[in-house]
């Protein structure tokens, strides 16, 4: 899932302060699941903003809408009616959602209310951590199901650096050393020797370094 965190109120306030009528758009997908951009957060942010501006002597009109998914134009279409009566759109969706909305309503300023963070998994209630960088060439099959690219601070491909201590990464003891995890997993699988094979220099073209990526499914695309 895509994770995100709410932007500091200060920043959000700065974005919306020139306007009197805001359309606050939430998303019922990833950002709901990570409790940052669903109906609940929309109403909280709305309430907070209104109170803030009330204190400044300004009544801010806010329409709250939460779409099923902001990264799909069809859902974004649902905003058509409400958008006219707003001076600007404040989106609580991930970057994909914000851009889909921006693309649909060119004449409206669109602001993100959250910072899109990473593709992660939830460890437990309220805790998410990064798992994938979308490098486009998955090595999990070799590394025992733990990704060194997403989870090693140095993206090392050939084992832990000298900073690995007690299974933790040198940059933060809250971060597991990916290579410790990989090693433990390979041992568990009886594949220790894997570690000795050198992983050759990676071809980054499949990742962001190859330029913006696109998937076209000829069989599906119209």
């Amino acid at each position, binding site marked *: 899932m895509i994770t995100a965190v709410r932007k*500091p*109120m*200060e920043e959000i*306030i700065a974005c919306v302060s020139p306007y009197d009528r805001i359309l606050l758009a939430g998303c019922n997908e990833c950002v709901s699941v990570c409790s940052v951009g669903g109906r*609940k957060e929309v*109403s*909280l942010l*709305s*309430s*907070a*903003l*209104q*109170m*803030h501006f*009330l*204190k400044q*002597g300004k*009544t*801010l*009109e*806010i329409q709250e809408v939460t779409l099923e998914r902001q990264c799909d134009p069809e859902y974004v279409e649902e905003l058509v009616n409400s958008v006219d009566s707003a001076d600007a759109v404040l989106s609580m969706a991930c970057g994909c959602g914000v851009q889909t909305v921006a693309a649909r309503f060119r004449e409206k300023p669109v602001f993100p209310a959250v910072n899109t963070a990473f593709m992660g998994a939830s460890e437990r209630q309220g805790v998410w951590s990064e798992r994938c960088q979308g490098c486009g060439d998955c090595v999990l099959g070799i590394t025992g199901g733990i990704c060194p690219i997403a989870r090693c601070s140095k993206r090392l491909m050939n084992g832990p650096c000298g900073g690995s201590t007690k299974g933790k990464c040198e940059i933060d003891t809250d971060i597991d050393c990916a290579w410790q995890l990989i090693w433990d997993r390979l041992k568990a699988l009886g594949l220790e020797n894997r570690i000795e094979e050198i992983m050759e220099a990676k071809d980054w073209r499949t990742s962001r370094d190859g330029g913006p990526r696109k998937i076209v499914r000829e069989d599906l695309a119209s």
Partner: protein
Amino acid sequence: MSNTFEPEIVAFCCHYCAYTAADMAGSKRLSYPPNVKIIRVPCTGKVDAIHIMKAFQKGADGVYVAGCLEGDCHFKNGNLRAARRVQRVQALLDEIGIDSRRVEMITMSAGMGERFAKTAREFTEKIRELGPGPVKAAERDFGLSAAG
């Protein structure tokens, strides 16, 4: 609005402890400021951050959530969750320039009538010192009334 400021305070009280304690305070004729108005919830675990925010938005000057003592929650841990939510609201209020001392989590057992009255008194005093909440301030300064 009269020039002497009388705070409006909403207290979300759980049925099993705080609300009962409030009744206890009553039956013992323990006096506390009438500014405190109680909304009964089955458990403070039910008190949503948005309820607290809305209370302010509708005109409250202070809000507190009163639940069972730690470990005594009739529903195991509702009070602990409520406490965390209150912290979050406090942070949010600070972010929008509203003194976070206006919201508080308080715990007591059903028998603690005295504690209920005491906390009601103390909280009211605190809010009195903090002055009018966002809505009343806006009314006073700009003649605005609350939205939402």
